[in-house]
């Protein structure tokens, strides 16, 4: 197998960084939520890459070929948990964004600050 080094780790971190960028520098509330989603996706990808074992197969015995190593199950379980948590937080964040829009008529953070007075 060709050596790809730590590329998967780096890609996961790049997703986290992109998400942080959107969260810190974008002014639109929904864009900020997209940033949070990107950070979540990056962390999930990071967790799964941690559990990969070179030449391993999925940790499921049903119809599995014999005598090969299997990848680690725990990070997959953790990722399942964190995906659902991500959905829950995204839903709540978007609900609040809609609520803010209803009150202020805008999604722009700077305009909200002005309107608040």
């Amino acid at each position: 197998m060709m050596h790809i080094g730590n590329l998967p780790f780096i890609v996961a971190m790049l997703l986290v960084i992109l998400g942080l960028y959107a969260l810190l520098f974008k002014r639109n509330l929904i864009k900020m939520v997209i940033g949070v989603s990107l950070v979540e996706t990056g962390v999930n990808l990071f967790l799964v890459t941690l559990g990969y074992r070179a030449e391993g197969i999925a940790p499921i015995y049903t119809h599995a070929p014999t005598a090969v190593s299997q990848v680690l199950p725990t990070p997959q379980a953790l990722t399942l948990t964190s995906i659902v948590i991500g959905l829950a937080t995204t839903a709540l964040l978007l609900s609040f964004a809609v609520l803010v829009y209803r009150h202020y008529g805008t999604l722009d953070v700077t305009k909200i600050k002005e309107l608040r007075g």
Partner: protein
Amino acid sequence: MIAETIIQVVTLLLIVLGGALAVWFKDLLSSIIALAGASLLVALEFYILQAPDVAIAEAGIGAALTMAIYVVALRRTRRKEKE
């Protein structure tokens, strides 16, 4: 083996591209679609990394349902990032 590696590298690069597009687009709907695309590619990457359980969850929850919730939220807010 070489083919698999190439697929994996391309997938990883496309994931970063999808994420960057999601941040870059000014139109929020395009942004959300880019995010969902990145999520689907991440699901593919999970499959390549021998995590079919997580791949199904990411495709179903991370891409489809998250996008549905985003679209619902967009309906009554603005579609453009700046107006």
